[in-house]
């Protein structure tokens, strides 16, 4: 085997890498470093009094029952969003991949929700499910089903899960569709000739061959549910009622921006950063082994 071409000197590669390094440094390492530094301080909102308190903020956050509640909410929320968004997208992708009339139109329409901003998406759902002004909300109440997500925590959670998952279905759909189209037709035809029914073909051929896509999407969806759903929650429930839909990222916002408790908020975001790094590492290390490429 021939050795690859080796560039002489270190300057050129460094210069070529510089833009990327600069972006990573400015937009990731710098703010992350600032968050770590703030998490070790206790200061007033105006930054006039500042104390170095070591890990005290972390100890307080971890001992705080409302933080643990938010962690539980986040687990329920992220898992539900990922499962719902992935399964719905897979179902839709499999259907749209079939030779049906107007499949191009379906595909286009299914991709649209991805272009909707989270806050707008939330408002759309609000217009559907608001107990006073929402179409479905009013219908539910008229049918004697007590629907009020502003007081019922379970209903509130359900609503933010559905709204967040709906936003993510389009993204997953594109990837699943691409994954489906890259499966060789010959394999499927051979299976058909052997007498395998569609369901069996799906579970024994399509699903395993889709696993790299699914694995990638699982990671992306969990990260989405952890971080990008702030807008949906903020517009729909503001973390309420009684903190029922307060996820970790939302709590970071509430404590930092609303309550001006910067140390606690920074400590929480550092913990969140560690959780997500760990989660991604675990996914790549353990789950990836089971994936057929």
């Amino acid at each position, binding site marked *: 085997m021939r050795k690859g071409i080796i560039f002489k000197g270190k300057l050129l590669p460094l210069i070529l890498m510089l833009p990327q390094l600069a972006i990573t440094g400015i937009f990731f390492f710098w703010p992350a470093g600032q968050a770590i530094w703030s998490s070790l301080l*206790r*200061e*007033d*909102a*105006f*930054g*006039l*009094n500042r104390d170095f308190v070591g890990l005290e903020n972390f100890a307080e956050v971890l001992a705080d029952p*409302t933080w643990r509640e938010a962690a539980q909410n986040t687990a329920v929320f992220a898992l539900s969003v990922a499962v719902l968004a992935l399964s719905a997208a897979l179902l839709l992708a499999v259907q749209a991949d079939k030779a049906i009339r107007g499949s191009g139109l379906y595909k286009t329409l299914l991709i649209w929700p991805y272009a909707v901003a989270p806050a707008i998406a939330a408002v759309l759902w609000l217009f559907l499910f608001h107990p*006073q002004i929402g179409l479905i909300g009013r219908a539910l109440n008229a049918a004697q089903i007590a629907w009020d997500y*502003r*007081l*019922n*925590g379970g209903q509130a959670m359900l609503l933010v899960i559905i709204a967040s998952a709906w936003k993510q279905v389009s993204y997953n759909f594109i990837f699943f569709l691409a994954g489906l189209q890259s499966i060789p037709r010959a394999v499927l035809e051979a299976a058909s000739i052997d007498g395998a029914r569609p369901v069996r073909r799906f579970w024994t051929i399509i699903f395993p061959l889709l696993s790299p896509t699914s694995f990638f999407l699982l990671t992306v969806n969990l990260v989405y549910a952890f971080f990008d759903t702030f807008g949906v929650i903020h517009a729909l429930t*503001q973390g*309420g*009622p*009684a*903190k029922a839909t307060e996820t970790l990222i939302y709590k970071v916002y*509430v404590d930092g*921006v*609303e*309550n*001006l*408790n910067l140390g606690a908020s920074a400590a929480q975001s550092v913990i969140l950063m560690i959780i997500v790094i760990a989660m991604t590492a675990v996914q790549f290390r353990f789950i990836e082994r089971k994936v057929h490429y």
Partner: protein
Amino acid sequence: MLRRTLARSAAALTTAALVANRRAVAQGAPVELQFWHGLTQPLGGMLEQIAADFNNSQQRYRINATYRGGYAETMVAAIAAFRASNAPNIVQMFEVGTATMMAATRATKPVWELLQQTGVNINFDDVLPGIRGYYSLPDGRMASMPFNSSTAVAFYNKDMFRKGGLDPEAFPKTWQAVAEAARKLKAAGIAAPMTTSWPTWLMVEQFSAIHDIPLASKGNGFGGLDAELTINNPLMVRHMQNLIDWHKEGLFRYGGRDNAADGLLPSGECAFTFASSGTRARILKEAKFEWGTAMLPYYDDAPNAPLNSIIGGASLWAMNKGPGAGRSEAEWKGVAEFFAWLAKPEVAAKWHTDTGYLPLTRSGYEQVKATGFYKQNVGADVPIEQMLRGGGVLTENSRGIRLGGFPEIRNIIQEEMERAFQGQQDARTLLENATRRGNVVLRNFERANRA
């Protein structure tokens, strides 16, 4: 070539700017003052009009009034700007941010000091006591400039009162009578007779003031940062338990936090609501029925009830530029002159009648009364009369609230109320939890702001 052109034009621009600047200084160009506010339209436009009138009235100062999002966003924006040494000269701060601003002594200049330093005179003696008390130091010196103050009142649907066989001209005075009225309305087929906006402000803060019971020790926090919540008291427990029971019975509808319930009365869903007096404009616009305004109810077996209600709304704070950056004398003077403009009787009266916010002074109220305004706008004087209820003499409990981190405490109480309405806890647990969690906020604030 391109580079040279760029460099040359940059140089030209700099020179032009310098020249312009020098010329401006020579001609005595107005001192630019930034004023950040948190009022949406149409109120924000009216506020900006006041600033424009001030600018037109003189040449020396120019107030740039800009909208920075709601109250909470404006507060956060001003604080962030201060940390970046770019704070506005004046910021509008909601009443619950008062303690936070006051504790940041290096970030703000109290109004009394501002006036003393600049030699501008504003007479605060005549300001409505409830407004004055809220924004002054324990010794009576003003900390911030009162601007848009509201209070809370009851609004009710007279048509529904008729339907329920109640007197449409007499809203029940006591909570006992309120419950009875709600039962009658319920029997007449109104699914959710009663609701409230701003659950904490109405049912805890106003309630405590009206009944002359302390919300926190140290005179509701006026006496120092080491105050503790005292909301876990028998009368408060009784009232919360009533609300929880009424909610269960279907008499009371929890309409959400802050002003989320504002729409329930005008839409015809609820027969009466307790809300900010500023909701009047919305009800005027949206309600398609006959409605009335009334004072907040009370328990008549409480010894000192009813006292005056307390205010909401916002005041104006004069801010320093940043932790290490000061302001020129001219800037402070301009801020003081603008505050004096706001306190002028005709400006204050116009603001009051245009917006429905409380008049600033008692004499201003009398003047407006003399014009017959309240005869044409029935009910517009109820909030003012309620502010003067109990003789207009404030007690330690009806003066206002001065607690650090109070926006957070408000949310904590709302959360615990939500838990109770969900059936997870009773009134005693609600108030115990709220007190415990609220005190943590107070201790954190005390620690972060120790001198």
